[in-house]
């Protein structure tokens, strides 16, 4: 049972890490385009 629980913990950690990476990547892209839009407005 401990081994099975360990596998579930690893699986969830992997999935959460993947989702977090995707969200951070999307945030970086969003910040880039926000910066472009904001600087574009002030020109």
């Amino acid at each position, binding site marked *: 049972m401990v081994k*099975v629980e360990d596998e*579930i*913990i690893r699986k*969830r950690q992997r999935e959460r890490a993947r989702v977090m990476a995707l969200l951070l990547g999307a945030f970086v892209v969003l910040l880039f385009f*926000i910066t472009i*839009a*904001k600087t574009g407005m002030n020109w």
Partner: protein
Amino acid sequence: MPTLELSNPAALPADWRDFVALTKPRVMSLVVFSGLCGLLVAPVQLPLVLSFTAILCIALAAGACGALNQWYEVDVDAKMRRTAKRPLPAGRMEPQSALQFGIGLGGFSVLLMGLATNWLAAAMLLASILFYVLVYTVWLKPRTAQNIVIGGAAGAFPPLIGWVAATGHVAALPLLLFAIIFLWTPPHFWALSLFVRSDYAAAGIPMLPVVAGFESTRHQIFLYSLPMAAAAVAPWLLGMTGPVYGVCASVLCFVFLVLAARVAANRATEPSAMDAEKHLFAYSVFYLFALFAVLVADRWLAW
């Protein structure tokens, strides 16, 4: 697929899907849509990426409200069939995780809104989160049958925030949009609370049907529908919208009032005999979507 019974599910890292469930995605759809409409009817057009960011911030703030609400109401949710399977009452997540997630998401949404659009919109977003969590969830909901009347203001903020994100100031039209949702909330929630009354009674939430009974609630639903209808046609009568909105809003409100009158005439006490209440609840969701969609269409036709 075989399921595994774990001795203590909360001791595991929570599944990311449970964090999504904390944000109440179904409730979020109406919040996002009304916020988007507030932004689209504004006379100033933001760059696409800033519009997207403003709506994203409104969605994240709504998600934060959902998470903080579920964190605070975990004991209440465990007593109601409708909510017992949520991540916290079902024991799939530590309460501390939900609290940190809610505060983090709320803070992030306010900061991003301020940086991407303007700080008045960010301040309103913060006010709406605090109003929902502190005034509605913590203070009003467990104490008074008027919880949904005053608390409805929290759900009415999104079109106002959408407008302010685009223009940087408050105007009469977004205040009317605020009033429409504010006055729509009581009949919408009271229709629901009539056929899930036993759930609210079991959880000790003083919703109107629990405190004042079926007849009084049905009477109140009809009475509140009248100012709601008046607020819905007001933008047309005040010359802020065109005839497309005026005619569509009048028809939508007429159907709403007919369904509310059917509820007022119903005497059923068993949920199985509450078709009128279920129809009004379902229609009220469609009504708000349709009303705001027509408003956007009307403004775009005028430009």
